Every structure is written in C-alpha cells, then in structure tokens.
C-alpha cells in the first residue's frame, strides 16, 4: 500500500480499518539465496539493497526479538559524514547521500532532518584538528565550514560564553548533517524490503551455523528450525562476537555500553546537533520536543543494556558546562545500547575466513548514521563477493597489516575510541 496524504485521508474515511501490516509476517522457508542475521537497520537495509540494487530477492532477515530492538532503537539518531580519515570519509558520505533520498526510496517518512551538526572547539589545537578534518571533507566533496566564535554566538546564543571553564572558540559545521527518526528507518526498510519479497522473520534466534564438509557455511540453525542459505551475512552489532563464536571466529571487537538520554518534551530550544569539545556531551532536540543527548561509553565490557550513574552525571555535567540553561529541564529516560567497539574505532565489512560467512560489525558509535551506507556496501559484498569501492579499507585483516583507521589515535583500546 502506497503511503501518502491521500491514502491517509482515504483510510480515515473507513476508520483506518484497511491498513495492512507494515511488513509481511513471514514464516521461514527452507532455503534462501542470502540469509541476513540481525533485523536491525543494517540487516534490513542490506536486504532492501540486495533486492532493489542487485536483484537478489530470495532473502531472509532473521531477528531474534522484534526488528529494531538492538542499537537501531537505542541511539541518539544523529546522521553526519564529518570523518577525517580515508576509508571513513568516503563511506559515510555515501551513506549521507543515501539518507538524502531515503524517503523517496522507501515511501516511508524517516524524518531525515538536515538541521546541521556542529562540533565545537575550545582550543587552538582543537581548531587545527577540525580544520584538517574539514579540509579532508571538502577534498572529498563533503560540505564543511569552520566557524569562528562570532558565528557560533550568532547561531547558538544560548551557550555559556561568559563563565565557562573551557570557553567555546568556534566550531566545525556540517550543514547536511542532522538527525533521523531511528525507529522509522527500521520500519521503512522493513516495509520496502518486504514489498520486494524479502522475508522478515522475527522471534527467530540463530543458534548455530550449518557447515558442509569443506567448512563452508550453508545455512543456520535457528529457534524456528534450520534455514539453508547460499550466503550468510551477519549484521548483529553488539552481539558480533557471540555470533562469530558459533563459527569459531574471534574478532577484534569488544562490547561496551553507550548510554543515551532524553528529556521531557519542551518547545523548540536547540536548533541543530551539537557536540561539546571539552567534555562528553552531544545533543539535539527531537521533533517531539525532547532533548536527546549522550556522552562517552561506560568504559568496561558489558552486555547489560543499562548505564551507570557516574557516566550519567558526567554527561549532564558536560551539558551544564556548555549550556546552563538546561539546568531545570528534566531528564526523562535513560537507556543503554551495546556497542561493537572495534580495535581502531572503525567498522569491519568483509568476508570472513569461513567460506560463505560475511561480516558487518564493529560500528562503535557510527552505526546509526551508517545504516543506509552499510546496507548498500554489504549488499554489494554479498552480491558480488568483492568489497564496494567505498568499503575496501574496512577489511578484517587490517589489524594484521597495520592499516588501521584510527580517527582518535587511541590504538587497540576499544573503550577509548
């Protein structure tokens, strides 16, 4: 069913009794050309691109719970392509371009809102680092502007310019950055992929891999029975190590909790997405009115989807240092997502040493903004067996060769990325 204001009006006349399921409730078939493990944004986007770009429609997406129940539903909804290193820059811009056409692609309003992302700087050294990054972006055809203090004041007069411990000096602005409605991205891909014949199978947990005599993966064992597969793609960030272990793989990944917070809904207060450069705090305001904000990861390995109090305090301290006008705004909800923190802070999209098994993992904080790009390049890898040109550096063996993509320069210490 095509969604539009007209279909809504028509449906209203019949009391909305005629709407159909947003995606088909599929029961598993015996075999698919491609089975994707993980019904999050990445898995569903991969399925949609397999079907729409590569003509591979005999595809199943297996989700152990309900779709979007992992990090796709637990993030701060930011989209941007302001990365500084080769590999990341081109990939995230590919993703940004796909965000820009998402609603038309999917016939689903994911509320992609290009309201601008600004990273504030507080020192000369930080300004120089942002200049370097901004220039990288511009050289790669991505929009970037370096704002001085006056420009920041004009854009965000409510920041603390008077008595800050680390005064704001300026910012790096990407106007095309912004936010999207995270759940709608999941539902939109599910809606569109399902429409092209992809089977979305919820409450179907993968419990093992089926291997042939040569060790090739030929299917998966699931809580809903065995499902055969030409190829199996993993898109289970947060659980990558656990699923990979079923295939005997150890990964350069640790799982960490990243908290996020939302305030009570208030009338428009913050126009864009902002990152504090002297503390752990970033914020935007949702269309519903809540301030959506976050900070650093809790810092220790965890699969418990809950955050600790010290980090919550640290984030709010950052917020109050940057803009003490939010002091009386109340924090409404706190949640924690499990990040795949890779050893250099960048993702891995590659074939694995196990024939027939493909990996999409290690997204760290970049997972949500990467959703369409990740689906696009992972579909390419699954369809063509060669990496997409914007994902060639996301190889699994880069840690062996030393070709890391380390934006923060922190080395093999996942909790510092």
């Amino acid at each position, binding site marked *: 069913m095509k969604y539009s204001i007209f279909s809504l009006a028509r449906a209203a006349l019949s009391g909305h009794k005629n709407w159909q399921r947003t995606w088909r409730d599929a029961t598993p078939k015996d075999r698919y050309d491609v089975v994707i493990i993980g019904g999050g944004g990445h898995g569903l986007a991969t399925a949609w691109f397999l079907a729409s770009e590569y003509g591979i429609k005999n595809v199943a997406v297996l989700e152990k719970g309900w779709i979007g129940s992992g990090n796709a539903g637990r993030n701060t909804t930011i989209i941007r392509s302001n990365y500084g290193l080769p590999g990341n820059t081109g990939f995230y811009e590919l993703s940004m371009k796909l965000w820009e056409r998402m609603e038309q692609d999917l016939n*689903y309003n994911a509320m992609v809102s290009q309201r601008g992302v600004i990273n504030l700087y507080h020192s000369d050294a930080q300004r120089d680092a942002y200049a370097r990054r901004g*220039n990288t972006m511009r050289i790669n055809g991505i929009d970037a*502007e370096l704002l001085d203090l006056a420009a920041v004041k004009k854009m965000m007069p409510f920041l603390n310019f008077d008595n800050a411990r680390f005064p704001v000096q300026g910012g790096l602005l990407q106007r095309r950055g912004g936010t999207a409605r995270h759940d*709608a991205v999941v539902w939109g891909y599910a809606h569109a992929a399902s429409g092209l014949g992809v089977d979305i199978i*919820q409450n179907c947990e993968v419990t093992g891999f089926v291997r042939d005599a040569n060790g090739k993966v030929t299917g998966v064992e699931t809580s809903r029975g065995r499902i055969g597969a030409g190829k199996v793609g993993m898109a289970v960030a947060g659980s990558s190590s656990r699923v990979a272990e079923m295939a005997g793989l150890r990964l350069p990944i640790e799982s960490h909790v990243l908290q996020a917070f939302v305030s009570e809904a208030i009338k428009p207060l913050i126009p864009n997405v902002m990152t504090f450069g002297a503390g752990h705090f970033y914020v935007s305001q949702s269309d519903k009115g809540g301030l959506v904000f976050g900070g650093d990861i809790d810092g220790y390995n965890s699969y418990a989807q809950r955050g600790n109090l010290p980090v919550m305090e640290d984030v709010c301290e950052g917020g109050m240092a940057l803009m*003490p006008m939010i002091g009386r*705004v109340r924090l409404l909800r706190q949640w924690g997502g499990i990040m795949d923190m890779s050893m250099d802070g960048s993702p891995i999209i590659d074939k694995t040493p196990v024939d027939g098994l493909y990996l999409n993992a290690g997204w760290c904080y970049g997972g949500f903004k990467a959703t369409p790009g990740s689906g696009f390049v992972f579909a390419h890898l699954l369809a063509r067996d060669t990496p997409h040109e914007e994902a060639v550096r996301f190889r699994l063996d880069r840690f062996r060769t030393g070709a890391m993509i380390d934006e923060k320069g922190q080395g093999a210490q996942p909790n510092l990325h």
Partner: protein
Amino acid sequence: MAGGQTNRLNNGGLIDRSAPLNFRFDGKSFSGFEGDTLASALVANGVKLVGRSFKYHRPRGILTAGSEEPNALVELRTGARREPNTKATTAELYEGLEAASQNRWPSLRFDVMSVNQLFSPIFVAGFYYKTFMWPAKFWEAIYEPAIRRAAGLGRAAGVADPDHYDKAWAHCDVLIAGSGPAGLAAALAAGRSGARVILCEEDFAFGGRLLSDGGTIDGLPAAEWLSRALAELAAMPDVRILTRTTLFGVYDGGTYGALERVNDHMPSPPEHQVRQRMWRIVAKRYVVAAGALERPIVFAGNDTPGVMMASAMRTYVGRYAAVPAKRIALFTNNEDGWRTVETALGAGLQIAAVIDARPDVSPSHRSLASRNGFTVLHGSVSGVDGGKDGVRKIAVSLTGGARAEVEADGLAVSGGWNPAVGLTSYHRGRPKWRDDIAAFVPDGAPPGMVAAGAANGDFGLGACLAKGFAAGVAAAHGAGHSGKAGTAPVANDEAFSLTPLWHVAGKGKAFVDYQHDVTASDIELAQREGFESVEHLKRYTTLGMATDQGKTSNVAGLAIMAAVTGKSIPETGTTIYRPPYVPVAIGAFAGHHRDETFHATRLTPSHHWAAEQGAVFVDTGLWKRAQWYPRAGEKDWLESVTREVKAVRSGVGFCDVSTLGKIDVHGLDAGAFLDRVYINTFSNLAVGKARYGLMLREDGIVYDDGTTSRLAEDHYFLTTTTAKAGLVMQHLEFCRQVLFPELDVQLTSVSDQWAQFSIAGPKTRDLLKEIVDPAEDLSNEGFPFMGAREVALRGGIKARLFRISFSGEMAFEISVPARYGEAMARNLMLAGEPFGVTPYGTEALGVMRIEKGHVAGPELNGTTTAADLGLGKMTSTKKDFIGRVMAGREALVAPDRQVVVGVKPTDRARRLRSGAHIIPKGQTPGPGNDQGYVTSVCFSPTSDQWIGLALVERGRERIGEIVHAHDPIRAEDYDVELCNPVFYDPDGGRQRG
C-alpha cells in the same frame, strides 16, 4: 467553605488554615494554605481546566494527586527559574507562586491549536511516517518546523539556571523507599534491629496513603500512630528520614540515586543553599515500599476535566479538604473504589451514583447506597458529556445492554491498582503477572532488593504493616543486624475484590495515554499494521513515553493489545522499565560541576606570580599555563610572542614547565624496566646524565616522549608530556605490576613536588652563575650537554639542574621543591636582570620547538610511528620493548607513509595555517592526491616568515619540492616548499655550546 476558596471544606484535612498563601495561575490570583499542592489549591478554588494535551490540544483537568500525573502540567515560576512540565500535583504551594498553563495559544480556554481535533481522523498513530514526504525539500523548510512548534509542552527558560545544585554520598545498611505503612514498618523494624537506615519519601509529608485514607493501627487512629512512629525513628541516631526525596534509580553494586528537592517549596533557595541535591546512596539492602498507583479505565470521554482517579479524589477531600466535585459519580471495578464514596459522604458531598463493573456489590455497600440515596448501576461508563468546564452527564452501559445517564459534576474512576514495579525492574527484571489482583508485581529484582506492601501487591493496611515490618527485619538481618525488633504494628485488611476491566468499547475517543493522546483505537491500528510487540507499540504510538512515563497508561495499553491479539497480558509482556523513576532536573545530575567549576583547575607553582606579570593563560588539559606575557604597547599576541622568542634567542628567558609529568623510578631493576618501556636503552645511561626517550604503545605507535635522567644507580627521574602525565603513570604501573612483576621497581609521581623551569638562551649560563652556588661548575666540561645533577643555590636551597634543551638554545631546566616555585620565578628575574631576562609562555616555547623541528602533541597524534617522526634511528634492535613487534607491520613500515617534514610558504609574506592539506603542485585536489597536512605552524622570528611541520607522504625524500597547501575550509591556497624540519641551528652547536 473557606474564604475565596469556593471548594474548600471548613474542617478537616492536613492543611494549615492559619497560614494562607497567595498564588497566581495564568495570571489570576488565588489563595491556598500551607500544606497544599498547587493542584489541591486549584481544586479548592474550583479550577477544573488546567492544561492541554500534546497532539489534539484537548482540555484537561487534574487526574491524580501524585507524581504519576499526566495532565496537570504547568510552567512553574518565571524568568530564569521557569520550569516547564511541572506537575501541579507535586508542586508545593508557597507564597507568591506563579504558574502558567502550557501548550496553548492564545489562552488555555481558547486554544487555536485545538483545531487539531478536527484533523484527528488523519492524525492517528504514526500518521507522520506516511506523509510529509513530498517534495523532499519541504521537510526541513515547512513540515518539520510546524511539527516542532506544535509539539513539545512547556517552554524552558532559555537562559542559564541561576540556582545551585550539589551531590552527596550516603551509606546505610537498609534503604527504604516510601513512608507509607509498609515503609514505616520496615524502618521501625530495621532501626530497632540496629541497622543504619535511610528512608526516602517523595512527598513533603510522611505517611503515604495513611494521609489520605486514615485507618486504625495498633488501636490508634492512623495519624496518632504515624506521629509516634516518626518520633521513634527520629530518636534513633542511625536512622535518617528524608522528605521531598525521590529514589529515582538503581545502579550496580547497591548504589541508588535519589533526588532531594531541598528548596523547591520556597520562592528561591536561601543564600548558600542549593535548590536540589542528588544523593548517591550505597546500601546493603533495599526495601521498595513505594506503594501502588491506581489505574484508569479506558472509556470514551475519559479525559474530560472532572474525571479523576478515585484515590486522588479521596486525597483531595481527605488530606487537603478540597472538593473536586460536589456531586460525584464513581466508576469502579473493585472494592477499593468504594472508599472514595465513604470519604465523600463523610465530607458531606453528594454521591450521584456508583457504576460498578463487577457482577456483585456487597450488601453493606448496597445499604450505604440506600441510606444515602444514590443508585448502584451494574455496568460501565460509555461516555462523558462535558467539556472544559467539567463533567455534566455520564452515559452508562448497563450489564444486559440497557443504557442509563447520571448527572454529576465529577467522576471518580478506579480500575484497580498497579504496584510500582519500576524500581525493581531497572536491571531488566521482568515483573510477573498476578491474576488475583490483575496486576504485575515485582520479580527478578537485583540482589539485596525486596518489595513490600502495596509495591508488592499486598494492598491491605494490615498486610502492608506486617510485610513491611518483616522486610525490615530481614533486611537488617541481611546487613548483619539482628537486634530486638519487637512486634509488627497490627491493623485490619480492607476487602479487595476486583473484576478486570481495561477498556469500555464505545463511540468517541477513549484515552490510554492522556498526555500523548494515545487512544484505544490507536493501539488497535498499531496491531493492524504489525506493531504487536509491546516495544513496537510503544515506539509506534508513543504510548508511555510522556513525562509521566506511562505510569497510568502502560498496563492498560498492553491489556488492550493483549485483547486484540488474543493473547494473555503476561504473554504480551511489559516494555523495559527505565530510570529515572520520575524526571530529574539535569542541573541536579551536574551538581556544582558547571560553569568555571565544571572541572578542577591545576595551577603551576609560579601561577600567581605569572598572573601578577599580566600573563595570558591557556587551558592545557586541567592546567592553566602562561601563554605569553603581553607588555604595554604590544598590539597583538604575535608581537608579544615574537619579542619573547627573540629575547631568548639573543639573551635569556625562562618558562615554567612544571606541568610535565615527573616520575621517580626507583629500584635495582629500574634500568632494565625502562629498557622495556622505551624503544631506546636506559640501563647504560651514566649516573648524572639525561637521555631523550620514546615509548610506544603495544601496537607499535608512538605513545609519549620525554627526558629521563639517572640520578643514582637505582634512581631515575622520568618526565612525560603534560598531556600524558597521568596516563603514562598508569601505563608504567601496569608494566610494573602486571607485565614485569619480577622486577624491583618503585614508581612515585613527583609531578607536584617540583617546580621546574626551563632557562634558555645564550646568556643562560650567565644567569645561572648569579643564582647557583659559585662552587658549582657550570662550564661545558663541568656540566656538559645532557648532564643532570643536584646543585646548591645561593641562599641555601638545593635544586636539580638538567642540561637539556627544547628550544635549541644553550639551556638548562632547573627544579626546586614546589613551594619555592614562586620564589624561583622572582629570583630568576632578579638574577637575570643584568641580562635582560624575559619570562616566556607556551606560545614562544612552541615557536622555538617548531623552529628546532622537535615533534610535540600535533605530531604525536596516536597514529605516527617513530620513523614517521624521524626518530626511527633511536630504536634499539638489541632488546625487546613494548610495541617492538607490531611496529614492524607492513603498513607501518610502508615507504609511502606520511612523515614529518618542514614546510614554508614560497611567498615569505604568507601566513601558514595548521590543518591545510598537502597536494602535489599543479594537481586538482581530490581523495587520490591528498598527501598529508600541516601539523604545527608558527611565525618564526628567526626565519622571519611563517614556517611549520607537516606529515607528508614520502616527505623526507621530497625536500625542496614545491607543493600546494590546500585549505578550502579557510578559502586559502598557496605554494609551500617541503624542507628540513630543523629550521634553526641544524648542527645543534648552540645547545651544546
């Protein structure tokens, strides 16, 4: 009725009629009494319309009397203290209180946005996902701004919060949330057992439902028992009882978060006091006695002002002597609802009818009805006739199909009670369903936590007391205290019988989530579209995501979903419960860490002296460092810095470098230890000598650098960069304790022990001769380059002197114990006066290090190797050290790596900027030819032009090549020459001379 307060009873209640308080709501003046909430005062003044809903802007009244309130939200206070979305039901009245309704324009009574109701057939759950897509550009320009303006509720102040907050720690054996009968009994039991107890009560008065419902305990009226219990608790030295304090979160290891609203009941906090305090409570045991929340029944028109929870109506009448309605109807599916009838009758109010959904009503209730002349209707409320001025008539579907009408100005509703399971479920425990009370009760609570009383599904007063007391005894025992607790307080249990009823089908909007305008038909629509999982339901309809966090709506919502999917309620399940239990001001989480006190400040030993000299300071991590020392008449920083550099290069200057990390490395194996952490060798360093060292991470990338001196056979003095001081200490302790525990090494941070100054320039020795004891030999032979030893200073103190140079000049670093730091600065000025000594700051320091080609932070960026920095030759091949193996990986030794090189614009007048990229000359910039970037720049007074360091592909092979500095973000493009990074004195003659 009391003066002006049309709906105030003349007697009864816990308000203080001798303390009247004036307040304003939407600009209109009212009065109330001490002991009122804003809501109870509005009730007492006959105000029914208090707010507008989120989506349809429907008129709303007060639904509850507690923190679960979805409707009665106001902007409290004005100006910088304006607090949006404040629940009138928990806001204490104070003299001069100002509140305004929100989410309406131009006024609460005439809200233009209420036209949204006309579009409500289209504005169903998730409608926005299906439209606003064409044309794409319209989203940011038109649709979204309109949606954003319409959405949200109250307005934040928009200016800095003027109040203060703080945070504190508390420790106890037994923590108790809630001071109702269960909580008080638990506190008495635990306290008498000898446990340290903290009891937190959200309300401003202790007692919970006792304040509204009364009762008889141990033969005493509830109020009398309450005051005795509180007196007993107050007399126990290790029992702390806090009002206005909400337990909001449960964290690992028995840590709990609580918010104390210290001064929210005042117009503004008194001097030196905070507005709110966040408590982090560490408790061995935790008793959740947070009670239960009465739940609504979903029926058409259930959001009409005047429809109120039955227990809330009891509270307004009983506790506040405020009358929500004069002719009341009750709609209940359980026995407890009838208590509202009793309370209302006791206060002399009229009962219009009781609509009871159960098949039977007890004979005693029947006789109550006949005695008081009201009817009991078996059936359900199917519609409400009324509007912004309240309820007028109630339509009833009688069991059997007939219809009836009841005239009333208020409708009390009771759908049963939901135990407050949030606090027991924050660690992903899922509550379990109990059929007998048709409610979820706690299950899977974290270790050390139990729920008691109504919070655990025991609703009777007697059971609350008994179970609370038992929980208190057990908690104290679990924490190691088993003193005599005595016996539990005794009371009778009220009857509790309930027939589940969630939703009355009928025409008209029936609200599940009042604040977010989620209706029963929205839930049915969500199910139709496949959003059956409760998490999908929540996200698709926004059910339970409003400021009341679904306290009145979640269970009803999932019951309706269960009904349409044909599943049971426990099969349908609950969403994940998330803290905080009630919304908490962001300022409270920050405490005093805001503004200038966001982070600590570290001051160098000469800080105050530098401040007296007029130094400009720069933040370097937590440090304040002197950046330059401006002099009168200098037009900008560059002029000052250039003067400082020239003064050093031609004479002598000094700079406080105490911020460097300084570590004493002791032990018989200190040398062997350093050999393992540095790429070069230190075990063969002679006593009295210093050496530059480079350490890698285990992945082969450079971690830190610094100079390390050997002061004795078994004592090295190691320095780190300012930025990495703490991290290097941690790393070295890891090496010492975990990697190489067999070595005899002791580490001590002495960063704060020593005030360290760099003294540089050709006249350094002249200056030092003034201040160092004449017996000390400072000649090139007596104190050669890289020498390090203790010397005596004139006037009797000892110092450590290191002949090391960052500037490339003849230079020493001198250390004195830190409390001499300020004297040292003054004495250096004194000693250097004949030589024109000049204090210099970090900028001049930076200029001189760039002129000398020394790498620093911008080059040690966590991705560079020793070879990238031009320091590959330092690498020892004769030993193992951290990072050795990984440094040899192919990509880290590739010939096309970006390496440090010097750069200078070919146009000598041009300014060079850090962050500009390097592109081969004549090529169009693109990802394929982006060969590096400028890392550090300065205006070099020595070269008389801007110079810099850069990381450039194969840079060292390309010295002399003209390349392009591409800086599109600053709209600059110019040619630069790649050159030797050592711009100044490349042979090093000056520093050795």
